């Protein structure tokens, strides 16, 4: 717990000092995307690593947040913050409605249900032209403002996105180290044992699922206001898979892994997009390799190296003694 908070403080310090060294708007935009995807991956990590469930439709919740914010501000001229909040509530509600029947079943029904939701929403985003602008999307989404600041350029939005990211990370640290967080880890290791100790397994899985959808929705709203433009592509199935890959590569049982996996996969595509159609093949291959050789992801590998070094120094000390 204390370790997590000191890491958090270090991250926060880095974020606020970084603009002293980084000047190019391009890097700011990469860092903004790391924050935005990082929020989704954070929620997904709690769902996958702690509650042991898989969602293949988190890009859809991301899209819900983005479209709710866009539609409510453009068509109804609502305050962007209010729109964001309404989008959040609506997305969480949709997640609940989807989760209630599916999480009662054992096995990976949630993966299928979320996959289905993703496909349905993708169709809605594309076909409800009057509402969503169809495949071309919506433009002219107003910028967020607060305390007299308009978050319209990369530099200002960088701070806003990371303040959200740090806040959600803080909340997640709290959760992971709470009674509920423990209960979630218990569920991922043995549902039966967790149940017999009084943990409401289904209800808790549902809550975390809804929570993770909420994180994605917030990320979506920020995304829409950052780019001032939304279209259906970034909310499709492939992005959902990419998000799962970020969780798995980072190490699904660690919040820091979430951040690591996101950073890696957001900065990689610069190289990967050149491979175009092979992009998904590479993600798939990475996923398989990680599952086979490093099921605890990058954080697991880091932990192993640490243990190894620790063992080596201990071994030396023992020899010296």
């Amino acid at each position, binding site marked *: 717990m204390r370790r997590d908070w000191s890491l958090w403080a270090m991250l926060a310090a880095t974020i606020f000092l970084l603009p002293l060294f980084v000047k190019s708007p391009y890097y700011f935009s990469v860092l903004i995307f790391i924050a935005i995807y990082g929020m989704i991956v954070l929620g997904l990590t709690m769902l996958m690593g702690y509650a042991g469930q898989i969602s293949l439709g988190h890009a859809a919740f991301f899209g819900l947040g983005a479209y709710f914010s866009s539609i409510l501000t453009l068509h109804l001229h609502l305050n962007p913050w209010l729109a964001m909040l309404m989008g959040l509530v609506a997305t969480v509600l949709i997640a609940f409605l989807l989760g209630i029947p599916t999480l009662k079943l054992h096995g990976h029904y949630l993966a299928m249900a979320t996959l289905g939701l993703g496909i349905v929403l993708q169709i809605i985003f594309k076909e409800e032209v009057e509402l969503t602008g169809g495949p071309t999307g919506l433009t002219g989404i107003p910028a967020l403002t607060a305390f007299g600041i308009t978050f319209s350029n990369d530099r200002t939005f960088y701070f806003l996105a990371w303040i959200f990211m740090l806040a959600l990370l803080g909340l997640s640290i709290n959760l992971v180290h709470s009674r509920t967080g423990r209960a979630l880890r218990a569920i991922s290791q043995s549902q*039966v*044992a967790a149940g*017999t*100790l009084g943990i409401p397994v289904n209800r808790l899985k549902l809550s975390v699922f809804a929570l993770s959808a909420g994180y994605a929705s917030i990320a979506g709203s920020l995304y829409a206001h950052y780019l001032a433009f939304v279209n259906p592509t970034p909310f499709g199935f492939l992005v959902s898979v990419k998000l799962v890959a970020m969780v798995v590569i980072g190490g699904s049982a660690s919040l820091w892994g979430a951040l690591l996996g996101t950073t890696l996969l957001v900065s990689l595509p610069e190289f990967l997009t050149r491979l175009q159609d092979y992009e998904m093949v590479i993600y798939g291959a990475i996923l398989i390799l990680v599952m086979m050789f490093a099921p605890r992801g990058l954080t697991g590998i880091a932990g192993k190296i640490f243990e190894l070094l620790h063992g080596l120094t201990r071994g030396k000390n023992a020899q010296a003694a």
Partner: protein
Amino acid sequence: MLKLHEISKSFGGVHALEDVSFELKRGEILGLIGPNGAGKTTLFNVISGIIPADRGRVELEGKDISRFAPHLIARMGIFRTFQNLAIFDEMSVLENLMVGSHLMGNAGILAALLKTPAERKEEAAIRARALALLKDIGLNDFANQPARSLPFGRLRILELGRAVGANPVILLLDEPAAGLNQRESEELTDFLAKLRQKQITMIIIEHDMSLVMELSDRVVVLDQGRKIAEGAPREVQQNKAVLTAYLGEEDWVKTLRKPHA
């Protein structure tokens, strides 16, 4: 306080349990014995809500709890251990005990996210209770080790401690002595005797007859899903049907017959 009324359960064509009825009195320790495959563990699974019975009722203080989900059974105060252990391997020993005290808290997911003062207070109480328990079961030195690093005997004790930490009204123990060496087995008997002093009602499934005979107030014998005998340990030892059920399992017959086993 706990009443089983004609519990039946079959898997495919196999009758795992057939019309099993008995009653458990407050503060009583009931030994549940029978040859392998008699349906003992299935009965525990039915009582703890893991598998619903096909027919019959489980009543706690007159309340029908047959259709309750496992976590609601736990809320009623019925906790259990597992024959094959159900330890959370990747958690520390202390955390395992803290999960056992899950029901000491009420804070929901929002309180956990915001770490509200109420949530902090709960968490502190749970930790204090787990630490006290850790001492009781003699695992102080292992508090922060991952549970998977503990030897089997200690895991048994840990699992038992976890269930006890939940403040059980009724405790169901599925072969608590299985896999323990002589010394561990004696420690277990002492620990169970302490629980008995605390008036915790228990059902114990056990193959170690000396342990059953020493601790039980009453014994129920199952064979092929049916109750074939019930009574004081002494009476059951002499029961013809019981001896027949165990026929071919020489060692058991011997221990059953031993007058002061």
